[in-house]
């Protein structure tokens, strides 16, 4: 048996691949649900109802998807350039921390759009700095960025703990370790009244659209793709590899930081060390399911949010542990890898 590259890759197959992967994941996880003594049909039905069954459910799912779109984009832009940014979780927290610090007092008094711009800029800078460190260590010393970005997630989370129990501690929080709140006037307006869904969703979708244009239509987009596909050839063709990767790191870290900012300015209002249910790690799954395409990231984020929000509701209704959502995600990621392989390669016997 040998595996060889297909001469032509059909776009239809590429678009079908994630659906096949998700279906495969749901079938495989049905066995685990059955082990809990619950019919998979009932469980999956409860999940759908929990994610879309009511107005509240839909808004909760989209609220969960909003930061996921941004962390998904963060992973996708980095992976395109073969910069393995696994540090989205840490960058998310740094952005959230910057947003809370700025939004509590520093920008109060500025006109609204300007205040938001300053907060977004600060949060993106905070996320970008956290990724620039491992990116530069790789470019300067050849240190593998997978390990360093992973380790920095722990450092970032401890730093958040240090801040919310220290200088940013909210004295009004009855001893709970949470940061000072952002000023009420700075919170993002709701998209749907009486829900947690906020305009951060619109922002995330717009950012995805802009990134699509940048990747398809600009020199920078072409350079990142070239740097990822074949750095040697790209360098020979005159692509400045170091500068391109540094820019990608700033963009990727910035996007994850922005995700932290909209979560703070949107539904949460302050920072805690448990505010992220793994947005950074789930962003990696989102990016892979999307085959690193910005439009796909939006769709995959809604899917991932559906599974997580739906699993919580399903767990309450049936008693199947909600960790099934994490299993579905992981299996979908691995199945997507295999599906993409067979979309671009064929088996010769």
């Amino acid at each position: 048996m040998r595996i060889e590259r297909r001469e032509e890759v059909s776009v239809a197959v590429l678009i079908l691949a994630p659906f096949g992967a998700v279906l495969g994941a749901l079938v495989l996880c049905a066995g685990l649900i059955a082990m809990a003594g619950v019919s998979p049909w009932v469980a999956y039905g409860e999940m759908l109802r929990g994610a879309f069954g009511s107005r509240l459910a839909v808004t909760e799912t989209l609220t969960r998807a909003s930061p996921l779109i941004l962390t998904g984009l963060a992973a996708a832009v980095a992976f395109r350039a073969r910069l393995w940014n696994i540090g989205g979780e840490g960058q998310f927290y740094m952005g959230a921390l910057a947003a809370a610090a700025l939004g509590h007092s520093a920008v109060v008094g500025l006109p609204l759009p300007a205040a938001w711009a300053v907060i977004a800029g600060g949060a993106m800078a905070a996320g970008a700095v956290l990724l620039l460190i491992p990116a530069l260590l790789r470019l300067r010393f050849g240190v593998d960025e997978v390990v360093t970005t992973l380790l920095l997630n722990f450092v970032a989370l401890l730093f958040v703990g240090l801040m919310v129990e220290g200088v940013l501690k909210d004295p009004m929080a009855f001893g709970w370790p949470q940061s000072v709140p952002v000023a009420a006037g700075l919170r993002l307006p709701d998209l749907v009244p009486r829900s947690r869904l906020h305009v951060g969703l619109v922002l995330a979708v717009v950012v995805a659209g802009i990134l699509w244009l940048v990747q398809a239509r600009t020199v920078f987009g072409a350079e990142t793709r070239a740097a990822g596909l074949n750095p040697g050839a790209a360098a020979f063709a005159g692509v400045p590899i170091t500068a391109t990767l540094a820019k990608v790191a700033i963009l990727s870290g910035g996007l994850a930081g922005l995700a932290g900012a909209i979560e703070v300015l949107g539904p949460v209002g302050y920072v805690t060390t448990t505010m992220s249910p793994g947005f950074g790690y789930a962003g990696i799954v989102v990016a892979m399911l999307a085959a690193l395409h910005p439009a796909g990231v939006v769709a995959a984020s809604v899917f991932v949010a559906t599974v997580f929000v739906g699993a919580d509701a399903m767990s309450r209704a049936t008693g199947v542990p909600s960790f099934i959502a994490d299993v579905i995600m992981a299996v979908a990621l691995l199945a997507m890898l295999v599906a993409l392989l067979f979309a671009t390669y064929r088996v010769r016997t």
Partner: protein
Amino acid sequence: MTVALDILMTASLWEAVLRIATPLIFGVLGALICERAGVLNLGIEGIMTLGAMVGWLTVYWGGDLWTGLAVAVLAGMAMGWLHAMLTVPLGLSQHVSGLGITLLASALAYYLYRLWVEVGDLPPTIAPFQPLAIPGLSSIPFLGEAVFTQMPPTYLALILVVLVAWFLNRTPAGLALRMTGENPHAVEAQGLNPHRIRIWAVMAGSGMMALGGAFLTTAAFNSFFPTMVQGRGWICIALVVFASWRPGKALLGALLFALFDAFQLRLQTVVEGVPYQLFLMAPYVLSILALVLVARRARVPEALMQPYRRGER
């Protein structure tokens, strides 16, 4: 300064160093075997988590402590088999597959734990391994208390270092494994099957990783809780680079790391006014610094992360 010296002079510190180093020794040896055969195994963090859960659960369900370790090894090998299938015959990205395995193994561990174990206010506990004093040697002053009154899996870890070093450097199979990590084409030319060697290496390595996880729940602690592995797997991946892919240096790296960890734990209780988070950050920052220090002169296995396809260059 005298405080630091006092801490270093206590036998209990050195006893703790070996105990803290044990899961790292298992993990770093496992990662090392995978990588010497040419496969990066980022599944380590999840495999350690799964090993911790499965090993604990076996004992909780009435199994022997050693049976618990054995079942953990089997669970780790199963995950290793999956990673090997995806990355060796299929040649998928070792980075992404490894992360996927970590997500899968830890999610499975949490799911099954929640499914099978009633958790009240506190997680249920088991009777863990007890320190075993080696007759004679344990009565040596200082050294006896520090080295020869450890829990049995710690002795196993130390023996494993010697075994792995001997296997890699002194046996034909070890030579074939190392060659697969350097030049799989040459292995094929010798009439050996590089795919089969890589698959077995990843499975064996993953079994050792799971053993490191199981040590946490059957010896270091007596219960399982989520996120208990706390990045130890990633630290092992960094330690392999620090050790230049050599078992002896890997042991040294794990011990140095554990010394630092045990030291900072004791320092925390003596030094006042420094937030505890800064102490907890230190191991991760230290790992990154170690990577930077050795990165320039690291001798990476030539074919690490290169999928091998027959007849393709």
